[in-house]
């Protein structure tokens, strides 16, 4: 999923958790900043990155993600896979909810059924719908999910309809996180979780504070709290970091050079390629001529966009699987060739160029990229108009296939190439499923499906890489780049690790010096 807006980690010398005045410098709360206020933190309702990041702190799943993005044990100590579709999980006996109650296999079943039950109204039931019997349960035809069983308190069996290799990774998503369905909701209307942190205060629009879960094995030792402040303007977030009241800042693109090239700050800058790709989706039902799609790629100088607008720290995308995922391949790109673009357009029947609307949603970095693309296309004779809409109006039009082209980015929810190719290019996902370019190719569909059934990880990665090459040769998008995120920590912070995916934070290694 791509996030409406990005979560930003920042940290700050804190105001005390309850909002009472404590002098800066005495607290060891790690203060972070968010660009947009999370709406829901209950795992069943979490849909964006900011929400997911905080949700992952308070709620453990059967599995979770380490900061390098690899799969890590959660409340499940270990697991085995039989026939490619039967998982047996062993619940960690030490796992406890923040109210002290031990996590049992039946809690996992109850949590999953909660997400699947229509009465809950979760928008993320699709995460669990590959479990056998989930559809019958959701339709009310069965009292339980047939594919979920608990032979004893510490053993959980999950059966799928058919083998699906990425399933294990999907169990790390917020919707598959475990909640205590027996205890009442807390003061913030949230269920108790079994994560390393507990959401202690939720002042909407202002801040969210977390304290350690005393029962968690990986609870942080070096800090006594985490606090997220909501600061909408990038300019203000930087000011807060510079004035010393934020510990960790996600550096805005415009300021990357300033922090990275200054010897006083350079050593504290951390960088990590994101599992994310920026692209201009072309309406493949409208631009059916491959020459036109290729020309639109040729007309954009991606390297220059990266250098000037993205702080020089991004990788040009010649495919949709980002570096950092198995399945990424370096491959030669179309390049930047304005004359060739003009020639192709003329050949395709547009000697005088053509007019295209590029839809975009509100986002600072997106706005700049769109403006640059508009400028490049103009030079190649493609007259582009930028159309900016709020998120839901944007989605409504784009998912209905009503637009020529749109600028968007895609975040990996779980570290698997499947999470890029299947939603973005499989013909069954046209529209709301993620394939908003309305790309459709039977061979591509077949390869994506086949890859998800390959048990061997290397073979699977190879199959995805091949499929990605095939897709790239069709130019369903104007491929832009894989961004790199840069964070800077204040001098008082030690052990802050930049997670490879937004669900991979736990801050267990962070120490804040007084």
């Amino acid at each position, binding site marked *: 999923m791509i996030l409406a807006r990005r979560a930003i980690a920042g940290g700050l010398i804190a105001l005390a958790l309850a909002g009472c005045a404590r002098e800066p410098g005495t607290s060891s709360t790690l203060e972070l900043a968010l660009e947009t206020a999370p709406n829901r933190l209950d795992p069943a309702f979490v849909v964006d990155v900011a929400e997911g990041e905080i949700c992952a702190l308070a709620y453990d799943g059967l599995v979770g993600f380490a900061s390098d993005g690899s799969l890590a044990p959660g409340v499940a100590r270990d697991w085995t896979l039989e026939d490619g579709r039967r998982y047996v999980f062993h619940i960690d006996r030490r796992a406890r909810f923040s109210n002290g109650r031990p996590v049992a296999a039946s809690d996992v079943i109850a949590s999953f059924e909660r997400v699947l039950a229509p009465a809950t109204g979760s928008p*993320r039931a699709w995460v669990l719908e590959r479990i056998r019997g989930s559809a019958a349960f959701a339709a009310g035809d069965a009292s339980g999910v047939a594919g979920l069983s608990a032979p004893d308190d510490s053993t959980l069996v999950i059966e799928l309809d058919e083998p699906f290799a990425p399933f294990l990774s999907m169990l790390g998503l917020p919707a598959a996180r475990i909640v205590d369905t027996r205890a009442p909701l807390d003061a913030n209307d949230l269920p108790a979780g079994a994560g390393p942190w507990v959401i202690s205060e939720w002042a909407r629009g202002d801040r969210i504070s977390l304290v350690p879960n005393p029962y968690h094995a990986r609870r942080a030792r070096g800090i006594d709290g985490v606090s997220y402040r909501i600061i909408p303007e990038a300019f203000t977030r930087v000011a807060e970091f510079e004035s010393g009241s934020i510990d960790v800042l996600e550096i805005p693109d415009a300021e990357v050079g300033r922090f990275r090239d200054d010897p006083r700050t350079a050593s504290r800058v951390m960088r990590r390629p994101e599992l994310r790709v920026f692209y201009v989706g072309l309406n493949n039902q409208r631009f059916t001529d491959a020459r036109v799609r290729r020309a639109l790629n040729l007309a954009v100088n991606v390297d220059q966009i990266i250098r000037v607008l993205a702080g020089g720290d991004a990788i040009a995308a010649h495919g949709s699987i980002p570096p950092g995922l198995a399945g990424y391949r370096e491959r030669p790109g179309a390049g930047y060739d304005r004359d060739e673009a003009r020639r192709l357009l003329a050949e395709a029947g547009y000697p005088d160029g053509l007019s295209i609307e590029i839809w975009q949603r509100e986002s600072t970095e997106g706005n700049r990229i769109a403006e640059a693309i508009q400028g490049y296309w103009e030079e190649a004779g493609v007259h582009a108009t930028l159309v900016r809409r709020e998120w839901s109006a944007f989605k409504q039009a784009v998912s209905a296939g009503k637009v020529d082209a749109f600028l968007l980015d895609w975040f990996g929810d779980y570290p698997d190439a499947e999470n890029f190719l299947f939603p973005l290019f499989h013909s069954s996902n046209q529209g709301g499923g993620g394939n908003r370019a309305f790309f459709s190719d039977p061979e591509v569909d077949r390869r994506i499906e086949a890859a998800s059934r390959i048990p061997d990880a290397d073979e699977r990665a190879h199959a995805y890489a091949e499929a990605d090459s095939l897709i790239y040769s069709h130019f369903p998008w104007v491929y832009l780049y894989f961004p790199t995120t840069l964070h800077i920590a204040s001098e008082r912070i030690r052990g802050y690790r930049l997670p490879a995916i937004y669900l991979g934070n736990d801050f267990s290694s962070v120490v804040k010096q007084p």
Partner: protein
Amino acid sequence: MLAYTVRRLLLFIPLMLGVATITFLLLHVLPGDPVLSMVGERYDAETIARLRTEMRLDAPLYERYADYLRDLARLDLGRSYVTGKPVWDSIRERFPQTLRLALAAMAIAVLAGVTIGVLAAWKRGSPFDYLLVGGSVVGVSMPVFWLGVLLIYAFSMRLGVLPASGYGGGRIAYLLLPAVTLAAASTAYVARITRSSVLDEINETYVKVARAKGAGEPRILVRHALRNALLPIITVVGVDFGSYLSGAVLTESIFAWPGLGRFTLDAILKRDLPAIQGAVLFMAILFMLVNLAVDLLYARVDPRVKLGRSS
């Protein structure tokens, strides 16, 4: 005065109905689908259809309007689509911050405005006067968002004396920059009104003094002048106070102030219909209440003002 107040309050009902209807129609006619803001990037058609039914978005417009009015009559603003919380709870949570900022801005506008106005009148014609008057005219003409940025740049980033943003758990230091930003334009108006009132009074007093050969006590002079300036100041500050309460969207955004304006802006960007409707209605009522208060205050201060003559 009581009868007048009751009549004005009764008049609120049709006005509220008008505001509620406009908001409702506008929001339901504009493109964009609230369900789509709830589901994240990846969703399927069944989820959308199910949510739409649950939210009664597939009912005909007139039925939804009737539902909305029925809920309103029961003083129920509904639940937010995105947070699932009652809208009234969110408003109650955010309003104190907005009120705090508005009161601080009003206090600054009155105190600083009157002080500047009196000083300028006292030193009339001097470079000091020109500086103050000129400064106040420029102050009115500056876009608030730009002023806010300049203040953060100067006081937080360069000088490092004031926090750049946030509510800060209610500490005064956090209130200063946003309040000054918000108050700038009103301060300038109050200063100009005060200055001209004091000048009028000085002129009048000179006439009296010349006639009676008595001494003009400066303090009395200022007090007289201020009484004259009171009505226009109440008007200016009252109208501005009403708009501060409507949430200073820009100021709240720049300073990450968790008030009602920011709340409504977020709701708009997320298509959270109940939240937008509730917040807009609440603001409109506040605005009308403040106007009523201003009119009552008017009659209090100046017995010549007759209430109820014209709206």
